[in-house]
Each structure stands twice: as C-alpha cells, then as structure tokens.
C-alpha cells in the first residue's frame, strides 16, 4: 500500500461524517412529509471525474448511479464555477426519475474542481398532469407532464436564479412546500461543499487525490474479495411485472449474470429485454444499474464501502431504448425507482439463491399499494387548503435469506430499509383522513425453511371531504417468488368499502376517489420463502402461530407442524409425534409429485 494506512482510515471516516452531516441538514430542514418523515432522499459526493466517492445511508436505488448526474455539468456549463448550483431531474441524462430533483454543487479548491456535492430528494409534487409523482399509465413523458430540468443552472454566486424558481413555483401544486424542500437540498449540498473544501484545505489537493485513488483501490479489493466466495458460471433468471391496462402482457424481465470468482468480477447483462413500453414503468440508466447491483450487494458481505471503486467489479450492460436499460426519449420513467426496479433486485438475488444453497435471497414485496399512495384533496380543518403527498403507513415483507427469515418492515427491494414508516398520528394531524387498521396480514408470508416476512393489511379513508389516492400495487398476478422449494409471498390486493360496508374490487394499479364514509383497503405483499417449509424448525413455526402471523391450518398443511393445547394451562405447543408423522408423509407425497412435475415453485 503506497499511502499511510492510518491517514486512509482517517479520511474515509471523515467522508462518512460529511455525508451524514449533509443528510442531517436535509432531513431536519425539509418541509414535506415524504422527506422529513419518510426520508426519501440521499446525499452523495462524486469526484470531478464522475465517480461516486461517498454516499449517505439511503435507499440503494436512490444513490447507486449518482455519478451519472454530474457528467452533464461540464458538458452544458463549460464555465461552471464556485457558487453555482444545478437542478437535474432528467431521466434521459442519468437521473433516477423526474420526481427526484437533484441539486448538484461543484466544489472547488485552489480554482480546481475536485468534487460535486449531490442532494437528491423525491418531491411532494413535480407538476405532473395528475396530482401524483407516480404515473404508471403515462404513455410518454408528455402524458406525465412534469417539468424536466436537464442539469439546469439554478444558483450563481450562491444566489438563486429566480427564473427557474418561478417556473417551478408556477407549475408545482404545492409551491411553498416545494421551495422549502429545495432550500433544504441547497443547504445540504452547501454543507457538503464547505466540509469538502475544509478537507482539501487541511490536507492539500495532492494528498486528497492520492487518497481518492487509494480508497477506490481499497474498496475494489474488498469487493473482489467478497465476490471470491461466489460460484463461477453464467446464469439466467426471469421474472415479470404484473400486467395492467398500459401493458396488458405485463413486463417480462431477463437478467443474465456471469460470475468469475477468480477474477473477482460479476457481469450483469440486461440487454436481452423488450424495448421501452408505453407506460411509466421504464427504467433509467441509474435505476437499472442500481437495482441489479443492489441484488448483488444483498447476496454478499454487507460490510463493503459502496463507491465507484467497489462497483468497478460489477459491470452492468445496458441497451438504449430498452425497458430495463437506458430510456429513449420520450419513453416515460415516472415509476422507475420502484416496480420494475424492485423486480430486478428480486430476480438478481433469487438467481444467486438458485445457483447455490447458502447464497442470495428469495424475492421481496414489490410495488406501492394503497399504504404508499399519493393522496390529494382539500382539508376543511385548514379552510379548504389543498394537499398532495405520498404517505408511508404500511409495510411489505422481505424475502427470506439462507440464514434468516425475511425482514418484516422491508417496504420495497430498492429501499434497503432506509425509509421510515409514518406515524399514524402525524398523518392524521397533517391530512384529513382516518387510519382504521394497520395489521400484519396472516398467512401472507412465503413459507420456507426460512420464511418470507408477511405483508400488512391496511385500511384508511377520508374524514369529511373527498380524497383521491394513486397507487401502483404490483405482485397481484405474480407474487414475490420463493426459492429452493420456498413458497411465494402473499399477493397484493386493493378494494374499496362503501359506507354500508360493501366491497368493490379496484385495479391494483390505478387511482380512486373516496367519499367520506368510504375506505380503501390494501393488502400488501409478503416476501418469498427460502428452502422447503417442511424443513423449518417446528419451534419457529410455533412462534409464528403464537405471533398470529401463521394460522394453525397453514402450519399444519404447509409446514407439516401440528400444534396442541397443553392440558395444564391451555397454551399451545408443538405435538412432536404428530408433526414427525405428518412431515414424513408430506415429504413423501411431494417427492412423488416432483417426479410427475416440477417442484412447487
């Protein structure tokens, strides 16, 4: 190692602290609930040659690929200088999706551009044609209707360029909210700028540059080392996003992976996929890459620096004009950060599991059901003031891994658990609605040796004025798959209850206007299981039954575990003899079945 290992450790630690400080600034000063409460944002530092150096603890789909954002700065603004800031949300130029506004601030030291500080945040509203930031049915970007900013200068000399601000404030439905969030982003990026400048002043450009190189090399070695344990070979995995009006055949997806553990290299090819679809579900370069990389990261040692150095070891091959690639204008990428992205994370981690027991993970809950809807309407408590925002009150189940059950509060594969569930009390203070119930949904877990986590059953409705809700529930047709004999997770479902309690089924992807007295019901998806449920420890099944997550019936029929009440206190216990017999019997019949057909999943 050419650099002092102590200084390397010290500077790496400092970088972490800087992005944390950026995060903290944005979180605490943001105005909209989606940022301040749900934390749908990320901060990062990118080098002047467009390599991701450090990122905050944020949703992986948000942050991996931030380096695509900075390249256009020098291209469009050759004279860029200190004091500049750029607004970038262009999905054709490296951004995730239009709802994520990114603020880019170039950091100079001694007149030299060394870094770019990035603050990316999902806005409450972006001026789409409908009051939602997710437009699954948009046939193209014109139908979406958002303002697109292809790396547009928004500050000069540390001052706003008011033309751009006025454009946003004219078009965005909640202009004050937007501007508050914009200022929070600027604040975060400027803190990053100040701290990185201090770092450069203290250590000098030369040693900082040496550090960056060394740090990338170190991270790359760590990644190569982690990949050494994976099995060598070429593999192919398939999945599909649910069909709906805009894509009646769904969106079939194929991922090809080539692993070379000796070289410590993974190649992921997404080029063999269909062209852009006339719907808002197309991927962007950033989300396609982030999704498959996340699938890899979920399958290996978690303790790796996540930067461009490590990512040199994962080559992602994308094709222009492809649904899971680089979008071709004017294809819509409105929902690029979730649905198809989630499917890509899922299929990647499942492939690793299929290659070898002990690797990868089963699929996790996908899509954004009613518990994650963008709601809008007016609030009579505030003199009829309009509101629009995304809520996060439900939870979806994570897929099982070889060593542990799926993670209960997973949300979606691309979030990495970095979001917060809203407080029901805060939501009811802010918006005129009642939440009736948020419960763990029994038997929605994908059964397995380790099981997926169950999803949630969630009911809410407006108070005294009508409310519109937009939601994008996937996994109604194709639930998250289990792996190695594990079962699929529970399906998504959406319906409406009218004031007399009658049920009307709703399209899983769509929107609804609810009148006072009506309720929307969302069944949120569970994660898939890993391995044969008959091999699950009976005590663990008992615990799930006691918890109320698994019914006694399912315990018996799927896990082969029989319970009985204890004579002394009536408490439930495993009936070991009957369990042994039943499991034996079920294993035999499944062996017979698999001779006739393929395994259950």
């Amino acid at each position, binding site marked *: 190692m050419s650099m002092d290992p102590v200084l390397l450790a*010290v500077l790496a630690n400092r970088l972490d602290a800087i992005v944390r400080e950026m995060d903290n600034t944005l979180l605490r000063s943001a105005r909209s609930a989606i940022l301040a409460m749900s934390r749908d944002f990320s901060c990062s530092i990118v080098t002047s040659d467009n390599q991701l150096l450090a990122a905050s603890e944020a949703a992986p789909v948000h942050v991996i690929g931030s380096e695509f954002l900075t390249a256009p700065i020098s291209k469009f603004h050759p004279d860029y200088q200190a004091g500049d800031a750029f607004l970038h949300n262009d999905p054709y130029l490296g951004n995730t999706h239009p709802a994520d506004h990114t603020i880019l601030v170039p950091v100079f030291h001694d007149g030299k551009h060394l870094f770019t500080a990035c603050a990316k945040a999902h806005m409450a509203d972006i001026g789409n044609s409908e009051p939602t930031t997710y437009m699954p049915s948009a046939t193209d970007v014109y139908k979406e209707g958002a303002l697109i900013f292809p790396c547009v200068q928004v500050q000069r000399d540390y001052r706003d360029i008011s033309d751009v601000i006025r454009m946003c404030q004219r078009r965005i439905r909640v202009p004050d909210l937007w501007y508050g969030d914009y200022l929070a982003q600027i604040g975060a990026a400027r803190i990053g700028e100040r701290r990185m400048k201090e770092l450069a002043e203290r250590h000098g450009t030369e040693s900082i540059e040496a550090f960056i190189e060394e740090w990338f090399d*170190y991270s790359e070695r760590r990644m190569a080392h982690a990949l050494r344990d994976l099995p060598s070979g070429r593999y192919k995995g398939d999945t599909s996003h649910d069909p709906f009006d805009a894509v009646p055949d769904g969106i079939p997806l194929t991922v090809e992976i080539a692993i070379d553990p000796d070289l410590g290299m993974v190649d992921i090819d997404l080029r063999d996929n269909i062209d852009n679809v006339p719907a808002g579900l197309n991927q962007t370069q950033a989300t396609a890459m982030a999704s498959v990389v996340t699938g890899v990261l*979920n399958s290996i040692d978690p303790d790796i620096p996540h930067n461009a150095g490590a990512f040199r070891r994962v080559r992602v091959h994308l094709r222009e004009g492809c649904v899971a690639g680089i979008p071709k204008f004017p294809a819509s990428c409105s929902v690029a950060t979730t649905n198809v992205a989630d499917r890509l994370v899922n299929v990647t981690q499942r492939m690793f599991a299929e290659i070898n027991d002990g690797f990868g993970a089963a699929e996790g809950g996908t899509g954004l059901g009613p518990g994650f809807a963008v709601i809008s309407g007016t609030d009579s408590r505030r003199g009829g003031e309009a509101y629009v925002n995304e809520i996060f009150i439900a939870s979806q189940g994570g897929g099982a891994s070889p060593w*542990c059950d799926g993670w209960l*509060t997973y949300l979606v594969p691309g979030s990495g*658990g970095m979001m917060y569930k809203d407080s029901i009390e805060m939501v009811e203070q802010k918006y005129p609605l009642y939440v009736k*119930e948020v419960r763990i949904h029994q038997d929605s877990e994908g059964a397995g040796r380790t099981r997926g986590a169950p999803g949630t059953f969630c009911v809410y409705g407006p108070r005294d004025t009508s409310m519109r809700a937009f939601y994008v529930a996937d996994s109604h047709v194709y639930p998250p798959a289990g792996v190695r004999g594990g079962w699929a997770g529970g399906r998504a479902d959406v319906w409406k209850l009218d004031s007399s309690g009658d049920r009307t089924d709703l399209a899983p992807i769509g929107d609804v206007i609810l009148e006072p007295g009506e309720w929307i019901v969302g069944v949120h998806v569970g994660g898939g299981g890993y391995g044969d449920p008959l091999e699950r420890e009976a005590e663990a099944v008992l615990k799930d039954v006691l918890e109320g997550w698994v019914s006694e019936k399912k315990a018996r029929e799927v896990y082969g575990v029989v319970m009985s009440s204890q004579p002394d206190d009536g408490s439930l216990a495993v009936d070991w003899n009957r369990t042994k017999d039943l499991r034996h019997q079920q294993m035999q019949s499944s062996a017979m079945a698999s001779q006739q057909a393929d395994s259950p999943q």
Partner: protein
Amino acid sequence: MKNEDSRVTIGVDIGGTFTDVVVSGGKGVPVTRKVLTTDKQEMGVFAGIRDGLHAFGGSAQDVERVLHATTLATNALIERKGGRTALLTTDGFEDILRLGRERAYDTYDLRLDLPEPLVADELRLGVRERVSAEGTVIQAVSAEEGERIYRSVAGTIDAVAVCFLHAYRNGVNERAIREFLRANAGFDVQYISISSEVAPEVREYERTSTTVANAYLQPVVARYLHVLEEGLRATGIAAPLLVMLSDTHLVDTERARAFPVRLIESGPAAGVIAAAHTARQNGLPNVLSFDMGGTTAKLGTIIDFTPSVATEFEAARTKRFTKWSGIPLKAPVVELIEIGAGGGSIAAVDKLGLLRVGPESAGATPGPACYGGGGTEPTVTDADLALGLLGSDSFLGGEMHVDVAAARRALDVLGQKLGLSDLDTAAGIFDVVNETMAQAGRLHAIERGLDPTRLAMVAFGGAGPVHAYAVARRLGVSQIVVPPSAGVLSATGLLVSPMGTDAARTDVQALAEITDDEMVGIFKSLENSALDELSRMCDMSTVVTQWLADARYEGQGYEVLVSVVERALDHGEADSPRVSAAAVGSLFEEQYELLYGRSLSLPIEIVTWRVIATNVEETRKKDVSHATQRPRTCKSKPAPRTKRQCYDSDARGFIEAPVFRAESLPEAIALDGPVIVEQHDSTLVVGSRGLVHKNELGGLHVELS
C-alpha cells in the same frame, strides 16, 4: 433541628463493576469508597455506606440525604428481567411494536437483529375505542370492552401498558380502561402505565414503546427501591432516599416508582452533572464532556453550565453503537454520544489491510495485553503504554503491574500485517482512535448547532486525560480541564445534582392562531403539575421553572426545542410571565438558524409543550469554590518525578517529556508541554503546544495554542 455542621449527605453510584460511595458533610473532607457491585445491588450499597460513614466519622442519625444512581433499570431491560406485561392498543394497531418505524440499521445486511418486544405476542390486545387528531372522542370504551380485556389478561400478568392513538391529546379512554380493570374485584395488578401519563407526546410507536418499558420496569424497580429503603432504615438512616433520573434530576422514590423508564441513564447523568460542576467551578460555560473509560467513550455538550438534555433516546440496542437497533424511549435524558473507543478497545486489521480500532473490547478479562491476563490482541492501552504516554509504574499509582514487552509484542504482530513497526502501529492506533472520537464529538456538536472550536473540554474517565489533548487538537478546542479524583466522578456528581420534575404534552397549535393567554394557560397547567410533584419532595423557595416548546415550521417532520421562559418562583406566583407568539416565533427562528444556518419565512407551530421545575439550591450551595487563580510562570520550575520518551501527536514523533505527580505539583505554576501529569487513576498527556497548571481545587487546566 440538626446542627448544620454534623449534617451528612451520601452519594451512591452503582456501576457495572464498582459501587462508588461518597460521604460528604460540613465537618470534614469527603470520603470515597469503592466496593464491588454485588448481584443483589443493595448489599454493596449497605456495605459501602457503613464503611464510608465510619471512615467519615459520622453517624446514621446525621445523614440528611441519600442520593442514588443505579444501572438497575437499564440492566433489567437488557437482561429482560422486567415484569410480565400486557399491552392494550387501539383496535387495529396491535402489531405496532413489531412494525416500528420501519427503519433498518443496515442497508445491505439481511440478517437484522432487532430487539424482541417486551410484551409477549398473546398479550398485545386491541381495544375498540378511538380519539381524533384533535382529541375528540369518536368511540368511547364500553363496559363490555373493559370486561373482555379483564378476562383476557387477569391472573397472568404483573403489569399493564395502555397506549391509544392520540391519547397525548385526550387520555380519557386510557383512563377509562384503567378504571374498568381496577373496578374488577379480581384484578390484582398493581402497575398500570398509561401513555397519557408516561409520555403524552405525539408519535404512537415511540410512545407505546416508552409506556411498555415503563410498565415492564415498574415491578422490578418498585421492589428494589422498597428493599433499599427498608435496609437504610434498618441501618438507622431515616433520611429520604433520592434517585437520579436520566435527565440529571433527583426525585423521591414515589416518582421513581411511577416512572422507572426515566431511570435508565441514571449513572451517566450523574457523570455529566459532575462534568458540568467542574465546568462551573472553572468558569467555562460551554463545554464538551469527554469521558473515556475501558470500553467506550462518551461525549456530550454542556451549554451555559447545563448538560444538554434530549427528549428521546434508545435503550437495549442489539448493536450497541448502532442507531435504530434499540428500543426507542421518549423520556428526558442527558444527551451523550457513545462510541466503542476505550482503553480496552482492540486494534485489528480488517479483511484487506486497513487499521481498525474497536468497537470490540478486551474488557477486564483478558484485558489489554500489558495486563498479563492472557490478552494477546493489542488495545488502545497497549498503544498508550508503548508510546510512553502511560508509564509502566503509574497504573493506579503504581499499585498495578503492567508488562510493556507484552504490549509491544502484541503491537508487533499487528504491525507485521500493516507493514509497520510496533511503535508506528501504536502511533497509528493512537491517531485512529483519537480521530474517531474527535469525529464523534464534532458531529455531536455540529448537529446541535455548536461550533466545536468554541467549546472547552472536561476530560475524565480512566483514559480520558491521556487522549484529551490529541482529541482537543483535532477539534480545535483550546482549553481542557481534568477534575481531581476522576475515578468516582459520578458519585461526586450526585452531591451537586438538583431535585427536579417536569411535565410535557403534545398539543399542536399554530402560532398565528393561538392567543398569548392561551399559551400562558397551557404552560401554567403543566407548571402546576410539575410543581405539585416537586413540592412533595423539597422546599420550594429556591425553585426555578423553565418553559420550553418543541416547535417547527408547519409541515416539517422534526421539531426544534426552544426555551421560552425561565423564572424563579420566589418572585411570587402573581407575576405570571408574559409570553407572546411573536417572541416565541423569533426565539424559534433564532434556534432554527443556529441549527441549519437559515430560517424560512413560513408559519410556525408548537407541537409539544414542556415545563421543567428545578430546585437550584444544591447547585448554588456548591458553587462557593471557584478556580480563579491565573497560572503564573515561575523561574524555578518544580522538579519532575522522572522523564521519559513519549509520542507527540503534533510532531508525529518521539520526544522527551518530564513526568509530574499531580498531588506534589504546586498550584498555579504553568508548565510547558510536552509534559505528563499523573493522577491516582489517570494520566494527563500534554503535547508541545499546551500549557498546564494545577488549580486550587486540585484540577488540572490545559491551555492549547
């Protein structure tokens, strides 16, 4: 009335290894005693008190107050030794403890290990009831519901926690279910905690978690305090037992029994109070407290002589130093950041050659390699010893033998993996651990809107003074104070802690819409309930109250704590303070700007209202002695005990430094760095850009240039 001079106060701090006892009074030098913490904590307490009183020359009848800090509550949470507890929630939200905040503590680690809920699955029950966000009862609790719940829980539990939606706004349904349960003749559960009393603040998950922890701890804490009080009485001590809360207030046992969730950080609170006291004695209002012990370092800020107190924290983390891995609790607590960096922290090379220090610790056994207890991995203490920062003959005043060769062998093994010599490795460990602590301190200060370069440092704990100078240099701190006898600092802190109570309630009000009288009304009602409690415990003539508000710009998700009014009650009840929305608004904007560097022209709302009532008598009484002497340079320098080669982090090389013993150092004589000053249980290291002197209180004062 007792003779003033014969009055005795006893402070008892129970830590993991030692129980420290301080006996103090008018007629003599305070006596400190260290006894091993016993399995039954009260046994050590009684032994220490008997011994201490005897040595002090006081009798049981002279004892005026017994002040106590304990790890009992935190241990009961970690070891799951609380009562069997049932949780009653609003129907539809029984899974609240499981669903939590949804936030994971690691992005890519699928093996998350979160704390199991304190309530067993079958004891989480939904109650049909509902209150709106405005506090209106939409559905009251029916008698049938009360009966149903009674039948489900009776006879199987020790405690009940009740947390209904929006109960912070209106607790009527919570009280109703409690009445239904108590009205049943067959219901013999003594402990029912309701969220509208334990933590009447918005955010149902955190409030539920807090109420549950309170109920869970009640049976254990009540039993312990009872035994302790009985035992003291048996010893002949009739004086009241006062207990230290996490927020640095002392309270009577009645309040401690009602809200045991507030006891969790009892010990650390006493330590910080002692640091604040040191700061006050030295006239340093704004301070970073730096406490580095065997396994961890704790850093906190003290502003205007007052320790920073947070309104929420996490206990019983599954990953000790990782946020989001614990049980969130809404209870006032001294705000400390704790990191895995102590004398026993192990240095290692990670998978690919980078030097890491901690958070794994060699603990007391096997301990650092130099202890000769079988430890082979190099620790921070080993590095300090090899670097000459610690003398091999200066551990515990020379009572403890250490093996420098063993330390260097362990360092050498690690050094070979790094391509460094044993001493370069030791220097690397020293630098990395200092950087880690400085980083934590910097973030902690910055996140509170404070500039670390404008803080002084109070350093204590076994390893604190060894590292203080190097950490201070990294932070740009220009003054360090090391209190005398830092080893029993927490017990000493008890003696200067004030009695106090508080009250808080969430009631969201837009500043633009609330009248000044309404604001005063809300604060007054909280003040009355805080004072009610306090009046049971102490004389009220020296009580001050502080009115605070958690405010935010409308729509934001986080609140900023604003101090609105501070008033002394001895000015008379009649002069009700004036509070105006405009004044609160500008106080908020000031604080917001301090934290985030800007303010927004947006409407402001108050979310939670708080009142803290404190009896300042104790703090005032102890303020008599101040360190006022200025250091003077003297031609005839005192002779050092010895000289040794030690590592200088400024020069990144070895230099020769004189070594002094603190007790034989004359007061106020300024010594130029590099210099080492040894105390009984710690060693102060000062580099070449420092100037140190002993003040008249026996503390050491360092100026950095």
